[in-house]
């Protein structure tokens, strides 16, 4: 039925199967959007956030998926700027994932603020000193960049490229992609960093506060580095997942291993710097504000295990795994290592957002706990459903993996 829209040479499941899959996710999306609608129409009282726990699931989600979306900029950097042409095999997929992550994050942010209609005030009256201003500007710009980067992928659709105007537009757009990639790298560097800076600058939150260089706290650089580190890992995971679901070989194993190796080196560097940063924080930064760092981990659910998990289990271990050729060449272990690395970054973002807010600052403040409301979870799920849908459509109708046609037979 829709075979006219599917790139020739790609074998896709029947429209019926696809419809069932889409329908499922549309239902999930509908549920999620209902939750999001409640938050917009009724206000943020629908969430379980409060005056102390001002950020919750959503900010964690934003920080995590923006880090995961770093694959787009980092693959772009490798391919277009460092000229590692083997990554052509994953760039399209990475761009789509980047677009999903960033647009999802922006959408959630729009729900997360109390007055979304005033969101443009940030552009109108920007406070250049605020990390959030930097984040807002960079993310908006980068979302545009991603949308423009997505355009050629979209316009290469078999049916769309029949139109001469779209064809030439796509052709010319494709020529300037390296420039876009360069802008993307620049913007990503700053907003990934600023997201880290968001918490690192909060002197009133000694758990998160870090010293740094110039106007940037160390978390700025750690976030950039960690985002770059899972920049290759997350496409590795998604590619493997899509490969599993679609039962297709999508890229040559060498490409994935290459991604894994780069991820490994960056992760190792990140773990190193993170350890140094943690030591400086424990021994200097926090005590200078009269907060004993050991007390942060006295609280029930947040023992020192979380620090150990973040740095060793989800940091050092995957880094060493990815740097070991034997392990890397084993598909299962490679994916495990990628998973661990991504989980490590998620834990880091969790610690920076949720744990920071849960810990008291005033000496007579209690430790807080927070469980998201169903509306918050629904909104979270909406983003996932949206991502799955956009990716599914892109995968079906666009060419996300150029190597796929060379790696698969065309039998049904």
């Amino acid at each position, binding site marked *: 039925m829709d075979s006219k829209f599917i790139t*020739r*040479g790609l074998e896709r499941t029947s429209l019926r199967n696809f419809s069932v899959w889409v329908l499922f996710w549309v239902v999930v999306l509908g549920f999620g959007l209902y939750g999001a609608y409640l938050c917009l129409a009724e206000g943020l009282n629908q969430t379980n956030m409060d005056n102390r726990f001002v950020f919750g699931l959503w900010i964690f989600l934003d920080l995590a998926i923006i880090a995961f979306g770093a694959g787009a900029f980092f693959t772009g950097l490798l391919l277009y700027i460092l000229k590692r042409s083997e990554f052509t095999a994953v760039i399209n997929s990475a761009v789509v994932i980047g677009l999903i992550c960033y647009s999802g994050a922006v959408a959630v942010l729009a729900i997360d603020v109390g007055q979304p209609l005033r969101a443009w005030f940030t552009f109108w009256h920007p406070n*250049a000193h605020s990390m959030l201003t930097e984040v807002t500007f960079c993310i908006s710009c980068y979302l545009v960049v991603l949308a423009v980067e997505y355009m050629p992928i979209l316009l290469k659709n078999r049916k769309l490229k029949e139109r001469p105007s779209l064809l030439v537009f796509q052709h*010319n757009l494709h020529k*300037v992609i390296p420039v876009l990639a360069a802008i993307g790298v620049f913007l990503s560097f700053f907003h990934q960093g600023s997201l880290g800076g968001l918490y690192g600058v909060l002197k009133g939150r000694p758990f998160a506060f870090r010293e740094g260089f110039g106007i940037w706290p160390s978390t700025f650089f750690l976030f950039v580095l960690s985002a770059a580190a899972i920049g290759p890992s997350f496409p590795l995971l998604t590619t493997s997942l899509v490969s599993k679901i679609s039962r297709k070989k999508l890229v040559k194993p060498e490409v994935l291993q290459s991604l894994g190796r780069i991820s490994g080196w960056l992760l190792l560097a990140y773990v190193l710097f993170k350890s140094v940063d943690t030591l400086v924080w424990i021994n200097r930064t926090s005590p200078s504000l009269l907060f004993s760092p050991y007390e942060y981990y006295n609280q029930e659910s947040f023992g020192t295990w979380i620090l150990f998990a973040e740095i060793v289990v989800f940091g050092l271990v995957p880094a060493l795994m990815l740097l070991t050729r034997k392990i890397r060449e084993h598909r299962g272990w490679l994916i495990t290592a990628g998973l661990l690395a991504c989980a490590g970054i998620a834990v880091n973002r969790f610690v920076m957002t949720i744990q920071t807010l849960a810990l008291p600052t005033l000496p007579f403040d209690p430790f807080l706990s927070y469980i998201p409301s169903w509306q918050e979870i629904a909104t979270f799920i909406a983003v996932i459903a949206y991502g799955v849908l956009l990716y599914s459509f892109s995968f079906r109708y666009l060419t996300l993996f150029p190597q796929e046609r060379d790696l698969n037979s*065309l*039998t049904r």
Partner: protein
Amino acid sequence: MFPFVYDFRWEATSLIFLGVFFAVITTLMMMVATVTVRSVKDLRTRKIGTLRWHETFEDLPAGARSCRFAMSGFAPGRSCDNFFECGTCAVYPRFRSLEERHRPEDHESRSGHGGFGIDEKRYYHRGHTWLQEEEDGTCVIGLDDFAARLLGPNPTYQLPPAGSTLKQHQPAFTIQTGESSVRVVSPIDGEVLEAGDSTRGWLLRIRPSTQLPHARHLFRAGEARRWFQAELERLNRLVEIPGVGATLADGGTPVDSFRETRPDANWDGILGVMMLDV
């Protein structure tokens, strides 16, 4: 954001920040503007056909883009990066001269390789058409044996009327078979003189704009043999044709219609990938 906005702050940080922001925005806008202007220009100058071929070429699977010298063993694994325009290819002369010095034995030349009829008089194009020069200086274009077996029985042709212009590598006519339709690219520039049909052995009679010996991108018989072999291998990777794998090795004869052996395969996709219409 702008100096006229209430509460605008004339301070260094603000100005640097906004400066960078506006620089990014300007670059982005300039780029989009450039792309738009160029696209309009391209549309106007009607380079659209060439452009489409270039785009199609880019979209071809890597296997479909191997260099002719890769097939002849002089440049193993080399992919074409010049849109099959051997005429303007920088490496062509070097490999060509190599090839001429070490001309391989044409021991298989008597009959078609692998059961494909190869005519010494014909020039073969990567889109599975052939071109044959007639005595009156015109040329006829037909589909090669490989294409015929791909298409299966009774394909219908939509041929251009006499007087149409054909452009090298650009769609010349369309074939409909079963549910799929495939555009067949023209092997050479020229003008259509007459439309034929399968019973006459050719499909189009044209007057070429170039002298055939200069059409470097076309294969002569010896090369075509190796190419057919490569194409068969490629096809076999896409869909396992029963018997073909075995027959190839010992020079057996492939079946008459690939389609009938594997009716379950995605023939529309195979057709497109094999005949340069993706």
